[in-house]
């Protein structure tokens, strides 16, 4: 019951935010120089007025802006995101085709970074002032300070070129015709580099956050209570400190998960991962408005979904929320 109400409330809020985003993006992109007809014409390598007129009419660009906006918004209400100017395919098809790849990449990176970050962070917290703890934190700081794309480039050079261990780009081996398990393994192999690269930065964040949060939690009175009970240190760390330290991390993870979609733009470009991050960058360069708006919409929706999930998880983790009221 409570969850049902929660979800409806969140969804209502989400609709409002998404609507704002549609308007915002629409206005923003209208301000941009370059009109899609001119770009298509430009790409064609030859143009005349007739060609431009045809294109503008076809995409409704000859209509006043409020008509364009109204058409777009009312279309979205019916899950119609319009047509990609450049690719001549419904935007929804393009995005849905690319979305799984992005979800796979960011999802893997997310789980990887969160799991490793929490483990590394707790280890570092338990080993404050010891060399091993310092090493973990130094590494985390290094990963945090290293540009994502630089790591991506370097890892391609190292792992694909010099060591020839892993594929450098793409999502699967084209033409290999893998199916079933073989396909899964193939995709997995392609996933390793981009997911790890994307995960490193976020892992560094989670490591630092976990450590700080653990150290803060370990100052709490109930830790002293636990020690007074005669509990083993490892049990205290795990059951009392970590569990409480995880709460702020859940919140942070929800925020960062959305940012991963942004980080995926770089990763997807370097590793030729066919996801929406890359699609977005291409759409931007080609002024493919409908597509760009669609991707913005979806990435914002992704962030909102992540946030709702975060709230739900937080609710599960914290009894004060679950059993409150």
């Amino acid at each position, binding site marked *: 019951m409570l969850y049902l109400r929660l979800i409806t409330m969140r969804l209502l809020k989400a609709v409002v935010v998404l609507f704002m985003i549609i308007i915002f993006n629409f206005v923003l992109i209208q301000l941009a120089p370059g009109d899609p007809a001119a770009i298509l014409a430009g790409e064609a390598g030859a143009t005349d007025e007739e060609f431009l007129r045809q294109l503008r009419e076809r995409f409704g660009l000859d209509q006043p802006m409020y008509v364009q906006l109204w058409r777009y918004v009312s279309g979205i209400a019916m899950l119609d995101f319009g047509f990609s100017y450049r690719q001549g395919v419904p935007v929804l098809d393009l995005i849905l085709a690319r979305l799984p790849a992005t979800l796979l990449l960011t999802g893997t990176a997310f789980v990887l970074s969160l799991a490793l970050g929490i483990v590394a962070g707790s280890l570092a917290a338990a080993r404050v002032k010891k060399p091993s703890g310092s090493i973990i934190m130094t590494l985390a700081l*290094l990963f945090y*300070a290293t540009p994502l794309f630089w790591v991506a480039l370097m890892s391609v050079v190292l792992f694909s070129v010099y060591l020839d261990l892993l594929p450098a780009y793409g999502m699967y081996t084209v033409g290999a015709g893998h199916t079933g398990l073989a396909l899964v393994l193939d995709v997995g192999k392609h996933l390793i580099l981009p997911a790890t690269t994307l995960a490193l930065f976020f892992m560094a964040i989670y490591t630092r956050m976990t450590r700080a949060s653990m150290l803060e939690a370990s100052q709490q009175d109930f830790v002293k209570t636990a020690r007074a009970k005669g509990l083993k240190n490892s049990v205290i760390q795990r059951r009392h400190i970590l569990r409480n330290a995880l709460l702020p991390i859940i919140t942070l993870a929800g925020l960062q998960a959305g940012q991963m979609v942004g980080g995926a*733009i770089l990763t997807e470009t370097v590793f030729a991962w066919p996801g929406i991050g890359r699609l977005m*960058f291409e759409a931007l360069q080609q002024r493919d408005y409908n597509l760009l708006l669609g991707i*913005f919409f979806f990435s914002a929706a992704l*962030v909102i979904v992540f946030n709702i999930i975060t709230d739900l998880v937080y609710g599960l983790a914290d009894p004060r929320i679950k059993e409150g009221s």
Partner: protein
Amino acid sequence: MSFFARFAQNRGALFGLIILLGIIVMAILAPLVFPESPWRMVQRPFLPPMEVDGFLLGTDTMGRNVAAGLMHGAWVSLMIGLVSTLVALMIGVPLGAVAGYYGGLIDDGLMRFTEFFQTIPNFALAIVLVAIMQPSITSIVLAIAIVSWPPVARLVRAEFMSLRNREYVEAARLVGQSNATIIVRQILPNTLSPIIVLASLMVATAILLESALSFVGLGDPNVMSWGYMIGAARTVIRQAWWLSFFPGVAILLTVLALNLVGEGLDDALNPKLARERS
């Protein structure tokens, strides 16, 4: 203990400060050491490091001196980091202060506004903004500021919310100080230490963001920045490692130094926490 003594207790912070000072000195000395434009093509292209005297770090794809670019770039990267952080603070601090101090509907409205910005992935928004405004120092600084103010607003809001009911604030209200005076004179000075700490980290993030923008080709073409150097060297990373390596290391060191300094500031400004953390 003095502020600096507390700061210096954190050896990492001291190390970071030294690096940072080094980079600042580099930036300041750049026009003296390399008075010529870093864009000037002065030697044959792809000269490896230390092969020819006067070209310690080699030359790039067009025979420009990498060392000159690195030093001039220090200035640009630091300025972009600093200015964009200042702009972000100028947006985030007032918003957060007003939201946190007044609470209620004002807070609700401002926080929805903030959330709205946080719902769009940062880097995506930055790319779009720079592309729309066309790449230039100004547009890059603005874009970075626009994507990085929400955390400032949230932090300031949280601080204000916890401080606005402090007894000394209530006392100020009781003696008849105006809201503006209370915000500026009573609360704001007490939120400065976390803001300073956050700002030092934001400068680091801004430098990273600028380099990522340059990497995807959205840097200002008129200034030599580290991000630009990596972006330009990316295609030749295989035959000329030093072109992306040195600026990469420069970014790494700067960001690292800023983070260390940030931690040191945090320790020095919040001595109680520091003791707990160490």
